[in-house]
């Protein structure tokens, strides 16, 4: 039995009218790109419509001639999906290259769109982090911050979620193939609860829930499982944080828990900066 990869059987670029797709990884958990492989029903159909030219998690081959892929890729690609945030000097260079060889660049997930959970380092001293984890921190090169892709290069579309939603991903790719804008609504998780017919966990049970200030997309999973939303899809465009924080306090969350829940998967989102500390404000005004 052969052990070498067979010659690429795809038609060459001159005869292959399919648009090309590339998938890139920066600092991340791989969950968002895995979402593509989780499209079990659509994977083969999708692969018939686009040529997956660069996707290291799935294939060592690059392009129609099936040459070996490198972490840089050859390009050009019609659509690049980018997962992960920028946390090293080398990656800051690599994203520039990826932008240059991509016609359309879409970020997938909270890491690529908002810096991800690793952006918690932005609020601490990264040297302390390094020392806490490594005995020989000098072996490890890292930047002091974790930044979203849009802080480095222009981005054509940002898909939210930690992880992204499979259906939304398919919508983004399909829209791109059809040359139209993806239909990704910007409203909050609350709308999705209403559509799903889920009883509001806050109204019915007084459960603290970030649904009102969280971007829709997941289909309102948590409330359907009896849990308050913890904001994994990141903020809606203009969240009313003051009334959200007041409501969370009313539902029994401590100031510390409120700060923590906003400081998790989308900690570096500008819409969350700063999260009002109503308890501290009250103290100040009572002192004044």
């Amino acid at each position: 039995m052969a052990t070498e990869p067979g010659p690429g059987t795809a038609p060459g670029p001159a005869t292959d009218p399919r648009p090309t797709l590339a998938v890139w990884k920066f600092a991340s958990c791989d969950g968002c790109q895995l979402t593509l492989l989780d499209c079990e029903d659509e994977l083969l159909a999708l692969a018939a419509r686009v040529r997956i030219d660069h996707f290291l998690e799935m294939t060592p081959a690059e392009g129609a001639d099936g040459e070996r892929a490198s972490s840089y890729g050859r390009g050009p690609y019609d659509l690049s999906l980018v997962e992960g945030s920028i946390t090293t000097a080398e990656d800051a260079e690599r994203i520039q290259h990826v932008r240059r060889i991509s016609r359309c660049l879409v970020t997938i997930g909270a890491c690529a769109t908002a810096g991800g959970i690793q952006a918690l380092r932005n609020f601490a001293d990264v040297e302390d982090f390094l020392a806490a984890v490594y005995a020989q921190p000098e072996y490890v090169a890292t930047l002091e911050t974790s930044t979203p892709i849009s802080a480095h290069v222009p981005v054509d579309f940002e898909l939210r979620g930690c992880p992204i939603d499979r259906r939304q991903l398919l919508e983004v790719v399909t829209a791109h193939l059809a040359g139209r804008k993806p239909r990704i609504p910007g409203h909050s998780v609350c709308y999705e609860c209403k559509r799903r017919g889920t009883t509001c966990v806050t109204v019915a049970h007084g459960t603290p829930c970030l649904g009102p200030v969280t971007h829709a997309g997941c289909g309102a999973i948590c409330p359907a499982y009896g849990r308050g939303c913890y904001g994994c899809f990141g903020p809606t465009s203009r969240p009313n944080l003051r009334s959200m924080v007041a409501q969370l306090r009313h539902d029994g969350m401590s100031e510390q828990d409120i700060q923590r829940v906003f400081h998790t998967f989308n900690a570096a989102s500008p819409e969350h900066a700063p999260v009002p500390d109503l308890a501290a404000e009250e103290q100040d005004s009572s002192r004044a």
Partner: protein
Amino acid sequence: MNDRGTRVLRLDALARVEGEASLHLRVDGGTVTGTRLRIYEPPRFFEAFLTGRGHTEPPDITARICGICPVAYQMSACRAVEDACGVTVDGPLAELRRLLYCGEWIESHTLHIYLLHAPDFLGRADVVELARDQRAAVERGLRTKQTGNAILEQLGGRPIHPVNVRVGGFYRTPAADELRSLAERLRQAREDALETVRWVAAFDFPDAVCDHDLFALRAPGHYAIDSGTPAVMTVHGPGPALREFPLSRFERHVRQGQVPHSTALTATLDDRRYLTGPLARYAINGRWLHPVAAEAARDAGLGEPGTAVCRNPFRSIVVRAVEVVQAVEEALRIIDAYEQPPRPAVEVPPRQGAGVGATEAPRGLLYHRYALAADGTLTEARIVAPTAQNQTAIEEDVRRAVQARLDTPGPAADDEELTHLCERAIRNHDPCISCAAHFLSLTVERA
């Protein structure tokens, strides 16, 4: 091409694995003198920022270490916190947790078998190319994977980073009839999984033997998934010997070290190289396979489960396929016996102390330890992931595979062939590189 003189082979980007790594191989006069798996995945510092969080947070946070095995992280995290708080979750809630974990085993193993590993044996670059001439096989794989995901979705809310897991149990437990449709799919998955075992058993396997010690949880009566006692099978000395130690002593036995070429830590077990994952589990837990899985293992040529030890890393794909059958059987058993528990979770009030938790992630043993303050704030977190533990064994496997090829008479190997061989030797272990780079905790011994 000539194997005399010095050759250096650089594999810039390893494909069909999770995460990013490269390999550096050095051959001097026909002898492999260096194999370095360089994990350049940027570190994400989970252990650092877990400190200061609340005791209910580790399951959601640590899930984000790995998109391929989030449940493993959630389960080890829950066990460690519950241990620290002196709470045991048992009965139907424990069974439901195991059901969720079975979903992850089915999904993750099937992903590895069909999408990442089988193309190596069939001479195809990837699953899309494989589907051109083996469409039915690929569809069978995708269908099985989907059934794993269906369990995760039903019980966890979604397959990647499930939302329904909490310290103490779940936010919501399903009614018995909600699981019934899963049982139907699982019966189909059983047929598909058995067919998968037959499919992979017919592949061509290079001869290879590894002599790493084998390390897995052991839970007499069960093929260990979500709990057990650490057990080591050594090869040196007069025949295989098995010994156990309590989980609380894990860090006395497993020592982590750092190497300059990698952002992942490496580990030794009592100062020796070792392997965790399917080959270890099969050697240590084989006698507790469900009869259907045991028969599939026998038919696939793995030998008598419970006594036979498979030491050929290339055959790990067969063991994985048997473990999918096992997970399907186990899931069906749990669903058949399931009655919805009166409460979705037990209370886990915080207290000062430390706790440990370990479970069998698809790729091997995953250990967590947390120290809590009286109000539940984490004061310390340590996580030891399977790939960091396996890194040294993987490098050794690569060395052996390349050396064996160089020692083969006949035409010399060119760089392309060696590159492919190295990649195969690495993929045998399904290394999860994002995990390896994310935890990195270290015991520093300074004289």
